[in-house]
């Protein structure tokens, strides 16, 4: 239970898709001019991530990873189909998006009208594929955790696009230097927001060390790739640098 809670908050705030790993930036920048559309796209992203990450987890667990085919019989235990994961993940995502679109259109026209136009956009949203790839590289243990990871990363992305859309609606009335208008100032604001979100890093890295050791994810954290840890590591070294200065 505790690991679920931890993963949930970690994916929303600390490893926020937009602010820590820059996933889904294209649609984040393109569709954040108005709050209403941003909410629509954000909801669609939550939905698709919560569906595709568990699905790809199953694929990874029973088809792709080293020795995953052992359930077929001992002679298959040596196969490692990991190199196929990109193509299978993206195929799953594209198919799921199409399927979800058809189902939603059939059973809930109201939802389709609000989400529908965003669904095709999502097939090529890096946040979706990124969710699955991070799920794979962070070695998420159970199907429940994979679902949790998909859902909470989606919520994190939703929060980010909602916040930037609200700011952009207001900034229209401000006197921004002409060359920075539009895209430029959006980048800089996102950077400032990302700095703000970095302070959440202290929730896990700068907090109570004894409590952190009990957390079962420390072992899996070591397995994380360098770049995904970069944010955390840097926060630590940054915190240490500040400590040393003081």
């Amino acid at each position, binding site marked *: 239970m505790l690991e679920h809670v931890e993963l949930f908050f970690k994916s929303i705030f600390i490893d926020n898709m937009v602010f820590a790993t820059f996933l889904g930036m294209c649609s984040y920048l393109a569709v954040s001019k108005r709050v209403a559309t941003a909410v629509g796209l954000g909801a669609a992203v939550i939905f698709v991530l919560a569906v595709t990450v568990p699905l790809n987890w199953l694929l990874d667990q029973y088809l792709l990873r080293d020795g995953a085919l052992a359930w077929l019989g001992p002679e298959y235990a040596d196969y490692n189909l990991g190199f196929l994961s990109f193509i299978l993940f993206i195929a799953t995502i594209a198919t799921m998006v199409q399927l979800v679109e058809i189902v939603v259109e059939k059973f809930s026209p109201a939802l389709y009208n609000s989400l529908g136009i965003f669904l095709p956009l999502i097939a*090529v949203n890096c946040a979706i594929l990124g969710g699955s790839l991070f799920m794979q590289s962070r070695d998420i243990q159970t199907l429940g955790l994979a679902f949790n990871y998909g859902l909470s990363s989606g919520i994190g992305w939703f929060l980010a696009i909602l916040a930037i859309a609200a700011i952009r609606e207001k900034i229209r009335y401000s006197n921004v230097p002409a060359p920075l208008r539009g895209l*430029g100032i959006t980048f800089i604001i996102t950077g400032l927001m990302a700095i703000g979100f970095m302070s959440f890093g202290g929730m896990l890295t700068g907090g109570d060390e004894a409590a952190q050791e009990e957390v079962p994810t420390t072992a899996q954290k070591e397995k994380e790739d360098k770049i995904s840890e970069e944010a955390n590591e840097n926060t630590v070294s940054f915190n240490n640098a500040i400590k040393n200065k003081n």
Partner: protein
Amino acid sequence: MALLSKKDANLILDPLSDNNPITIQVLGICSALAITAELKASIVMSVSVLFVMGMGNVVISLMRNIIPSKIRIIVQLVVVATLVIIVDQVLKAFAYELSKTLSVFVGLIITNCIIMGRFEAFALANGTWRSFLDGIGNAAGYGIILVIIGFFRELLGSGTLLGYKVLGDPIAKTGLYAIGYENNGFMLLSPMALIVVGLIIWVQRSRNKDLIEEN
């Protein structure tokens, strides 16, 4: 240029400045920002994208008359995914450390919007040679921004370029460090990538007033 007609040359030159994929069309930001803390990673990423885009545009352009338009997105995704798997395997085989640094961002070339954008906008409607040039041009426009960001982040953040200590040794206090210069560790953190892109956009649009957006 004798080799290329003026129209063809523009296919390569336009994306380098006035129609840059990152700063003007706002495509392919995701991978551009995450891996630019080091110049080396930026260069490898640019070359990977150059390969995938050049080849991908050629393949899509060759198949453009036989792809049913309803399933073209999936066809495009499969073509890109195949090329990216090649890049990924080559990196893992010959530059393992670097492929660790790039981690999932090699895979994310698949959903790099520049690639899909160019397939949709150009390769599906144009001949093979022009599509190839267009792919190379856009990838180069993407790469040049990556290299600029990587250059400044590595230089100001860790005082090195491609791993060489160009500003002197921070521990032995030689070079610039002797007179009290300090690395700005903040440049290595991810938010600074966004701010550096913002500044590049600022410089570019101040030089060319036509690019300024309506508020």
